[in-house]
């Protein structure tokens, strides 16, 4: 999948590292800088330095030669590509009328490839016993939150339960043309590419889910919405960037922590890849 995004020079540079593009977890491209490639064995940097054409090539492929189709995503700092690949972008913002209207001169990309690790939630299998619960997965970036969320969604998805996955960035289920590329269960409805807050407001009545699953809560409206959803009798499973509960207590998340029945804390141990396969989970009642 990631191979399609690489220009000839870039693909050759990655090959020169002895890494297969198909096995990469992450590829960081910055104009004029070496390319950093991350796979399960760690990070390596190329001698080759990326140029503007390498970035334009990847953006052209990812957007299907249609910048207009991804411009709203670009304003949020990423582009979703098929197969759940997410391309983070760095560049210069253009402001008009006090708001960000475009991103130009894109100078860096972070191509992240999702990985499906079935069984990665086995160490916390007791969480799946006794029905649905409100769960918050807490982890620092790169620790495997989304992988764990995907697996837990799959495990919770059973015929007597209706799960609604709000996959704003398309990373969890990797829906392409209406079909999910990654397994999130047979009884999961997926709403992809829609703002979380907009989704919360509109889908609860229409879809009548028993549980709403969403990735990467950010604060503000997300927190307000979570409280409202739980009050409405719908369970929530979500992820958040943090190193632990204590770190969240002193932030805007402090108030909403009480609505969760369980916290799953995913700690970074060694390289992110090592974590993906040997995740250390701790279940803590609040």
């Amino acid at each position: 999948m990631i191979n399609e995004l690489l220009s000839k020079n870039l693909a050759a540079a990655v090959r020169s590292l002895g890494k297969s593009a198909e096995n990469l977890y992450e590829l960081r491209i910055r104009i004029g800088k070496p390319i950093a490639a991350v796979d399960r064995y760690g990070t390596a940097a190329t001698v080759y330095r990326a140029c503007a054409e390498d970035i334009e090539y990847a953006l052209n492929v990812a957007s299907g030669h249609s910048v207009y189709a991804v411009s709203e995503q670009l304003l949020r700092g990423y582009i979703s590509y098929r197969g759940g690949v997410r391309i983070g972008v760095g560049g210069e913002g253009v402001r008009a009328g006090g708001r960000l209207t475009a991103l130009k001169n894109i100078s860096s990309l972070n191509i992240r490839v999702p990985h499906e690790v079935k069984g990665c939630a086995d160490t916390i299998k007791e969480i799946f016993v006794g029905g649905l619960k409100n769960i918050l997965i807490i982890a620092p970036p790169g620790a495997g939150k989304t992988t764990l969320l995907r697996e837990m969604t799959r495990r919770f998805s059973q015929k007597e339960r209706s799960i609604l996955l709000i996959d704003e960035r398309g990373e969890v289920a990797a829906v392409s043309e209406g079909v999910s590329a990654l397994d999130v269960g047979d009884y999961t409805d997926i709403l992809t590419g829609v703002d979380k807050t907009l989704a919360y407001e509109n889908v609860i009545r229409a879809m009548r889910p028993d549980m709403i699953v969403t990735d990467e809560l950010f604060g503000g409206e997300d927190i307000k919405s979570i409280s409202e959803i739980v009050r409405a009798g719908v369970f929530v499973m979500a992820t958040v960037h943090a190193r632990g509960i204590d770190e969240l207590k002193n932030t805007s998340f402090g108030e909403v922590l009480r609505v969760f029945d369980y916290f799953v804390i995913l700690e970074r141990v060694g390289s992110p890849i090592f974590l993906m396969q040997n995740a250390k989970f701790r279940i803590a009642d609040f």
Partner: protein
Amino acid sequence: MLSLIAGAALFVACLYGGAGIRRYYKVRSGYFEEINNLCGMLIDEIANLKTPLEKILENFTFLKRGEIVRQIDAYRTLLKTEVIASRESVMKVVDSAYLKKEEKLILTDFFMLLGRSHAESQIVNIKHYKLKFEEIGAKAKEAYRVQGALAYKLGILLGIALMIIVV
């Protein structure tokens, strides 16, 4: 007998010549009508659905034939092979015996801008080109109506005249 055959051959040749010139004007007129339709479709699809360019072009050419379909197919192939299409390559794509030099340059610029900016900018630019194409298309239509018909009639008349002279 031989002169009769020669006269008939000259008549047919003149007739085909006239029809060929008329066809040239007809293709040009049809071309600009179609590229205007393409602009309309691009504006609608980009403004309302943000449909990817490849899909718009595919839908536009579905069950169609002609010069514009040939160009669009070549352009789609170019995007797949080159990914970052150069101006020279796009110029080759738009090259056509039915288009004038300045029209080819306008069309090259038009294809070069597609998909390269955010929706509002795309729509403004495509509308600008649509106006240009409408203007050229109106002239091409008029040329087909006047010059195309004239060439066809002159072809017939010349054929008859040559036939009379030879016979």
